[in-house]
């Protein structure tokens, strides 16, 4: 099974797609990358992921896997070299716990903060900082969440090292203060200098342009404003 052809449907600026790219590259798995225009979804995407209609989608032989955390665990279980999840069940559970935490309490919040305005944006930044305070305690004293080498949690949280600073800049928010969060800042730096991560990142200038426009466009939508209000009611 492991020798079957691997394809990845992604979007150039998606932090979720990059989790999968990093996992595949760390494992040395050859794959074909297919760029998807998420604003003009292809019949292929709609056929492969009819439920969520989102990237990333991993195609392995005739198998289709969706949802980045599910895909990364699939990759880890299919190709045993360079293990991503820790060996011990408790450590594995903690990695899964913190990955879920960061997704709900930091990524989703920071993203809403980027798109929000005024008091709601301030609330997002405040909540995001509270989340980083907890993450700081987890990474303190470690080179990487995975210890000496990159692991599952580094991959799941890797967006913090590169996407979050872009969102901070575009959204005029400060979430990662290097003085307040020295361990997290050091980890971000270590990650960016890792060849697999550092060599596999979208162009920063293009990201800034993209997120400037995207956040503005989303804020025009009533349904999105409702979501912001729901999560960030001051």
């Amino acid at each position, binding site marked *: 099974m492991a020798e079957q052809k691997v394809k990845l449907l992604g979007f150039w600026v998606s932090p979720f797609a990059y989790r999968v790219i990093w996992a595949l590259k760390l494992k040395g798995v050859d794959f074909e990358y297919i760029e998807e225009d998420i604003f003009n979804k292809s019949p292929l995407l709609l056929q492969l992921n009819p439920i969520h209609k989102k990237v990333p989608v991993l195609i392995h032989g005739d198998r289709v896997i969706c949802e980045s955390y599910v895909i990364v665990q699939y990759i880890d279980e299919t190709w045993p070299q360079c293990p991503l999840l820790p060996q011990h069940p408790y450590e594995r559970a903690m990695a899964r*716990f913190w990955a879920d935490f960061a997704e709900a309490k930091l990524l989703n919040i920071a993203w809403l903060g980027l798109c929000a305005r005024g008091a709601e944006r301030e609330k997002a930044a405040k909540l995001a900082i509270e989340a980083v305070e907890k993450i700081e305690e987890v990474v303190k004293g470690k080179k990487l969440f995975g210890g000496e080498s990159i692991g599952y949690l580094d991959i799941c949280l890797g967006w913090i090292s590169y996407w979050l600073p872009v969102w901070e800049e575009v959204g005029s928010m400060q979430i990662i203060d290097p003085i307040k969060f020295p361990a997290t800042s050091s980890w971000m730096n270590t990650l960016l200098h890792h060849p697999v991560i550092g060599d596999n990142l979208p162009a920063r200038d293009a990201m800034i342009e993209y997120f400037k426009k995207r956040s503005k466009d989303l804020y025009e939508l009533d349904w999105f404003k409702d979501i912001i209000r729901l999560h960030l009611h001051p």
Partner: protein
Amino acid sequence: MAGNGDGVTLLGYWASPYALRVKWALKIKEVQYEYMEEHLPDKSPMLLQYNPVHKKIPVLVHKGKPLAESLVIIEYIDEVWKHNPLLPQDPYHRAKARFWAKFADEKCVPAMFRAFSKVGEEQAQAAEELRENLKTLESALEGKQYFGGETIGFLDIAVGWIGCWARMNEEVAGVNMIDAEMIPLLSVWFQKFLELPIIKECLPPQDKLLEHTKEFHKMLMMATLT
């Protein structure tokens, strides 16, 4: 003190479906454990100590180490106690089980809650969304007896509780959630699953749960009126 030595302790709440699915996992694995009831909404010092991040049940304490988040706990239980496996062996089937558990938690459960707690147009829309998402979930059965195949597995215990709560919620909130015509296979599966002795014996007392659901609904309706 909870979790001394090799002991397993579960901090839960009698009406919580999330604690229930952990109980099911422990039951299937035949793990002896001490159950400690949290008297919500008051949170014990032990809960706050063991789950400072979310301050919620369920919390599993094993060999003195706490774990939170029910699906994370269930995977842990599956990895520590290897007999009667919950997740399938094959990575692809494991991925599918995880995908669908996430789908149910993110797409079915919030819709069910909205259908229960809203009124009028909002309620009707939420109920329709729930019915459609349950229809989508039904496709994951793939003609099998249970999501786990011949026997119940991870996905069965992850989503099975919805059958019990949805029936209660639809009675109290007066809106259809389980449409047997729309989801014939899932309806049969809900029934079969909830009748299994190992599953049924862990369910909270149904009359007490109904009262609790009615109280909760009353509270929510009063909040919408003010």
